[in-house]
């Protein structure tokens, strides 16, 4: 039997024969057998070798077994060495107790039964071997513990170095939340010591306004084991508070138990101030924007609108919620929406300013023309944050522009009219004079005189048309007394041929002599236009009624003279009622200049008067009436009540 890891068994006996017999019995165990024939020898062996079991005879001549056992036990190295006594004499219980007291672990009586001896020794040998293994194991463990401790020490030192180098304040608490370590930055910032701070000591550096909330919050976390976060000011060593974002996370053991809390406090004072500044500047912007006389909007990087100022909301009569995002586009005129969105999107993607016009529905439902100017918002470091735009109601401006264009057109027409007037009127006068002379020349025969007469009539037509269309003529700088009845009679006289030719019935009612201060030529022009239009409207005949009466203008209560010219002609298409006083507006195709009524109104307005008309289309026929009101004191002559005259 070979043991791979033999232990030593020391056999002590003064009789060599016994030693030999023990050796024979134990050799089977395969252990290392040592022999000593005296106590002294045994001690020498023990010192040299690690002996697992000592097998000794109690009765030996110089040093008996008990004495030897005492000596062995005194040495610390052998306190646990197993000693088996072999005694040839009968052992009393007293002897046994004595032996046990000396550290004997067992007794074997003589005669030795080989199996028994082998078995007992073998037990102790095995025990020793196990003990040896345990010791080795223990040493290994101790070594590993030492290594681990060293590692931990290194890692802890690393951690602290790390914890001291981070810009945050940091701390570690027990599982119950009592803080036992802070990093250096904590002490640097708070100017406190661990003694003051440990446990719940940190409460005193939290802003008193926040402390109860903070403590309640963190205690909830201690209880629930969930991480904690809060923002509050901490007192610095120089007395001022700074804002910190504080977080704590639990550190778990392998079994899930919380062993530590690790916390940090990050100084966010600058962010907080920046936020405050942003907030304040935002507030300032809104206050300004709400007081601005224009409509303002702001959009984010996603093109969606994030803000509308008060004037915008008041203009559209909608709420911020309705307008936000793309809501504002609901107010844009459907005909303008697609084009406007296209301009907006294109400019937005290219980050360039834009300007566009569209109609936006006002709170009262009316669409107004808006001029919308948008610019990209570029912050520091070229950060693009969206667009801001301002809108102005430019409806009035647009109308003014249109009017300006119109009046420029008119001015150009006027200049042109001046040139044409000069170039036509000069030869016209000469020709008129020539025919004037010619027609009265005594040498003319009947036919020549007739021709000259016709030529003169035609010339007067030309003269009339140039006067009417190319002139803003006044014969005098000073107004003179003008009888409107005379003017009307004059006009009717001029038109008598056409009235007759068209088969028109003429009714005149002059209730007033109606003398006003004015310029006869231009007044004549007004009534020539109105009466001329009436005659033209009745190519198939009809009734022309001309009345003059004193009257009061209803809207202003002004006293004055009203001249009405009504006819039963074709009437005025309701579509044109708004336009008939516009320059160059005509319903007569190429026959009309489109200036007659416009000029007439201009003239009457100079007298602070008005021209109005009404056109009724009835199943029994149409009635169109133009009514001219000229305010002012009149100097009535004799009231002429003239009977209806029938021409034709």
């Amino acid at each position, binding site marked *: 039997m070979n043991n791979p890891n033999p232990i030593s068994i020391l056999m002590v006996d003064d009789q060599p024969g016994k030693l030999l017999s023990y050796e024979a019995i134990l050799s089977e165990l395969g252990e290392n057998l040592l022999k000593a024939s005296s106590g002294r020898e045994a001690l020498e062996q023990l010192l040299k070798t690690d002996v697992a079991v000592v097998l000794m005879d109690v009765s030996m001549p110089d040093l008996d077994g008990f004495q030897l056992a005492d000596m062995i036990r005194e040495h610390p190295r052998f306190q646990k060495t197993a000693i088996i006594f072999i005694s040839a004499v009968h052992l009393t219980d007293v002897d046994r107790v004595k032996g046990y007291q000396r550290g004997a672990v067992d007794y074997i009586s003589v005669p030795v039964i080989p199996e028994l001896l082998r078995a007992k020794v073998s037990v102790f040998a095995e025990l020793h071997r196990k003990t040896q293994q345990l010791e080795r194991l223990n040493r290994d463990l101790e070594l590993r513990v030492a290594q681990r401790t060293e590692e931990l020490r290194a890692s802890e030192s690393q951690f602290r170095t790390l914890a001291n180098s981070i810009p945050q304040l940091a701390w570690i608490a027990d599982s119950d939340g009592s803080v036992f370590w802070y990093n250096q930055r904590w002490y640097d910032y708070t100017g406190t010591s661990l003694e003051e701070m440990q446990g719940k000591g940190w409460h005193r550096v939290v802003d008193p306004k926040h402390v109860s909330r903070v403590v309640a919050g963190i205690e909830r976390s201690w209880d629930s084991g969930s991480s904690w976060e809060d923002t509050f000011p901490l007192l610095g060593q120089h007395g001022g508070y700074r804002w910190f974002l504080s977080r704590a996370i639990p550190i778990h053991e392998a079994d899930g138990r919380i062993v530590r809390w690790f916390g940090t406090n990050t100084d966010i004072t600058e962010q907080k101030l920046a936020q405050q500044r942003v907030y304040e500047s935002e507030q300032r912007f809104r206050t300004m924007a709400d007081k601005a006389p224009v409509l303002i909007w702001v959009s984010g990087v996603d093109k969606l609108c994030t803000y509308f100022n008060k004037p915008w909301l008041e203009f559209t009569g909608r709420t911020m919620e309705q307008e936000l995002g793309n809501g504002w586009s609901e107010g844009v005129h459907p005909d303008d929406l697609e084009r406007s969105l296209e301009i907006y999107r294109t400019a937005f993607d290219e980050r360039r300013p834009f300007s566009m016009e569209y109609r936006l529905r006002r709170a009262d439902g009316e669409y107004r023309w808006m001029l919308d100017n948008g610019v990209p918002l570029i912050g520091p470091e070229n950060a693009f944050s969206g667009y801001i735009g301002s809108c102005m109601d430019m409806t009035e401006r647009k109308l003014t522009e249109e009017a300006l264009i119109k009046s420029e057109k008119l001015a150009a027409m006027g200049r042109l009219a*001046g040139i044409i*007037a*000069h*170039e*036509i*009127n*000069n*030869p*016209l*006068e*000469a020709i*008129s*004079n*020539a025919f*004037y*002379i010619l027609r*009265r020349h005594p040498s003319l025969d009947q036919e020549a005189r007739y021709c000259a007469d016709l030529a003169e009539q035609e*010339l*007067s037509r030309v*003269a009339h048309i*140039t*006067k009417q269309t*190319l*002139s*803003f*003529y*006044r*014969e*005098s*700088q*000073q*107004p*003179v*007394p003008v009888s409107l009845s005379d003017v009307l009679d004059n006009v009717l006289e001029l038109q008598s041929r056409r009235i007759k030719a068209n088969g028109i019935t003429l009714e005149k009612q002059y209730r007033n002599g109606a003398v006003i*201060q004015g310029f006869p030529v231009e007044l004549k022009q007004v009534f020539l236009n109105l009466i001329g239009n009436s005659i033209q409207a009745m190519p198939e005949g009809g009734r022309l009624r001309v009345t003059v009466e004193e009257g009061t203008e209803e809207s202003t209560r002004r006293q004055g003279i009203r001249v009405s010219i009504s006819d039963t002609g074709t009437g005025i298409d309701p579509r044109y009622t708004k336009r008939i006083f516009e320059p160059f507006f005509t319903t007569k195709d190429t026959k009309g200049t489109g200036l007659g009524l416009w000029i007439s109104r201009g003239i009457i307005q100079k007298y602070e008067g008005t021209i109005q008309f009404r056109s009724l289309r009835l199943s029994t026929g149409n009635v169109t009436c133009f009514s001219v009101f000229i305010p002012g004191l009149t100097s009535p002559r004799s009231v002429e009540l003239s009977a209806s005259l029938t021409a034709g």
Partner: protein
Amino acid sequence: MLQDKKVILCVDDEENPLLLRKLVLEKAGYDVITASSAEQALGVVFSRRIDIVLSDQLMPGSTGTELARQIKARRPDLPIILFSGVNEIPADAECADLFLSKVEGPATLCEKISMVLGGAITTREP
């Protein structure tokens, strides 16, 4: 009545119209002296008897209103009619007694001349 024909100084830069106007006025019973410019008219107007001046407005050199002002400066009593193919009344037309359009025709012209000569003052005052 016919002791003296009234004398009209007729001013126009255009030859034919001036000639034809002269004929019309002569037919109407006036003596007519012509001048083809304001400068020429000024050379005549103070050196002999003139009862009324009938001047074109737009002429090369001085205009009708300038002529009228110069005449009125020395002869405020001498009636002046400005006569124009351009119907815009010039800004300083008040220096003349009457501003008349050429397209009014010969009859009106004669009528107005007679009116100005014969007591136009009363008709121009309210």
